């Protein structure tokens, strides 16, 4: 493997919740245009890590650097503007909006009309609206959701809601996309489709962090894997290296 550029660096990060350490001194790096998986048993701190990277809460100590910029004290919306978007473990599509509108919200960082312009519906807003609607529609085509674009998102079946959430995250033209358990609850066929989709996204030049329990998926598509247990990083490397690591086998694979 050639020399790859580091896009995200997690540096000695700790996170305490009321004295309990959810993450304890975790460091790892993510290379540009790779798929990096984070795995570990339940309660290992995977989702906490994603929440820290996307700024849901700040780390207790340590820092997170994205493209040479420290982002660990930024608010989530700032981080979105830096080019990081995500999906959620428990789907967070906007139930009160249509499928198309959901994706259009995803385009928020790509547009700039503010209150006053919108109230008066200035020509600029009109232009932007048209552009946003078109881009949204083309994204929906990419995700095979175009026939349901004016459905209320809550009326979509589960698998399609998952796809919609990814579409929405992708709309923000991220450099780094974080997927929190994208195939949880999907059947085998849907999981295969999702794997293809993730690889397709990678081909678009987007770096991906993947939190997942499905080992077949993780081993199949990841370039690198970081393994967490009880809030600590216990292993890291290529899928082959990780699979051989006795610590991982003991802590994780041994369980199953």
């Amino acid at each position, binding site marked *: 493997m050639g020399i790859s550029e580091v896009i995200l660096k997690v540096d000695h990060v700790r996170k305490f*919740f*009321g004295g309990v350490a959810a993450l304890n001194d975790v460091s790892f790096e993510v290379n540009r245009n790779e798929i990096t998986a984070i795995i570990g048993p339940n309660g290992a701190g995977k989702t906490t890590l994603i*929440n820290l990277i996307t700024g*849901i*809460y700040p780390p207790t100590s340590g820092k997170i650097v994205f493209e040479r910029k420290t982002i660990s004290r930024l608010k989530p919306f700032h981080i979105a503007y830096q080019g990081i978007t995500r999906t959620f473990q428990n789907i967070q599509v906007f139930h009160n909006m249509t499928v198309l509108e959901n994706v259009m919200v995803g385009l928020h960082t790509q547009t700039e009309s503010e209150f006053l312009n919108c109230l008066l519906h200035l020509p600029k807003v009109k232009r932007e609206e048209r552009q946003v609607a078109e881009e949204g529609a083309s994204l929906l085509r990419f995700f095979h959701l175009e026939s349901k674009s004016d459905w209320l998102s809550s009326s979509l079946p589960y698998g399609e809601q998952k796809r919609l959430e990814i579409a929405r995250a992708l709309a923000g033209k991220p450099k780094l996309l974080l997927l929190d358990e994208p195939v949880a609850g999907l059947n085998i066929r849907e999981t295969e489709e999702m794997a293809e989709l993730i690889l397709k996204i990678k081909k678009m030049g987007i770096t991906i962090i993947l939190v997942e329990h499905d080992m077949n998926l993780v081993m199949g598509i990841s370039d690198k894997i970081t393994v967490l247990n009880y809030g600590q990083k216990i292993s890291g490397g290529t899928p082959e290296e990780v699979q051989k690591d006795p610590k991982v086998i003991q802590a994780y694979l041994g369980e199953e």
Partner: protein
Amino acid sequence: MGFYEQILQFVLTGLTIGAIYALVALGFNIIHNATGIVNFVQCEFVTLGGMMMYTYYSLLGIPLILSFFLSMTTIILLGALIERGPIRVARSKAIIVLVFITIGLSSTIRGTALLAWGPDNVPLPSFSGENVIRILGAAILPQHLWIFGITIGVVIFLQYFFHRTLIGKAMRATAVNRKAASLMGISVNRMVLLSFAMSGGIGAVGGMIIAPITTTSYDTGIMLALKGFSAAILGGYGNNAGAIAGGLILGVLESLGAGLISSKFKNAFAFLILLLVLFFKPTGLLGYGESERV
């Protein structure tokens, strides 16, 4: 009356009314912890406590003590009824919808009370006479002692209930994490039902013990409850010890403010404190009673 006697007088009256705020604040907390909502029917629990006692005692001639417990039971049942009825039936369980439902119910009950008892204030007799008691130059009524005593009783009962009984512990567990609690086999619905019943009972007690001093009417509960809520925020919303501290502090501050600064803006004090706490120390004096969830 010298300056220190005055101060003592303000503090004593402040503590009395503060005890009522504390009871109301506890009522708010219990429901908040079980459901996450602000329950506006708390106002009516307080009102109805006094009005039911008036009905049982003054209109039906039932002995005072019996009236007290009858009235409390009635409001407990009402609380349970509200949970079993509108709150559980509601098609949407979104917090915003549930809060608004309690606002609607509050209005409905207040209107019904107006029909049933009319707009006039009605008196309740003191529990034991009206002979003024002098403490270091300050004057208080026997009813004030009843208020302190009963409030302390309620607090001790709650302390015991939440920390020593299985069902109380289950309620605390539900407050901390609903999902985990239900996985542990705790019936969340039952806990919510219980919380409504308990808030009802506590609110009713507050309404009953203050009524002999202030008289009571179909809408007395509103101001008491809103200030009780301020007390809950002051102490840290959801935190029971905070509710008691918040109530007493608010009562005393209000009384001192009215007495020493100006009685003009007496009612503004409580809400000013509410705003200041929200702006500068939103966790209240003693912090949240629950952990943060994302």
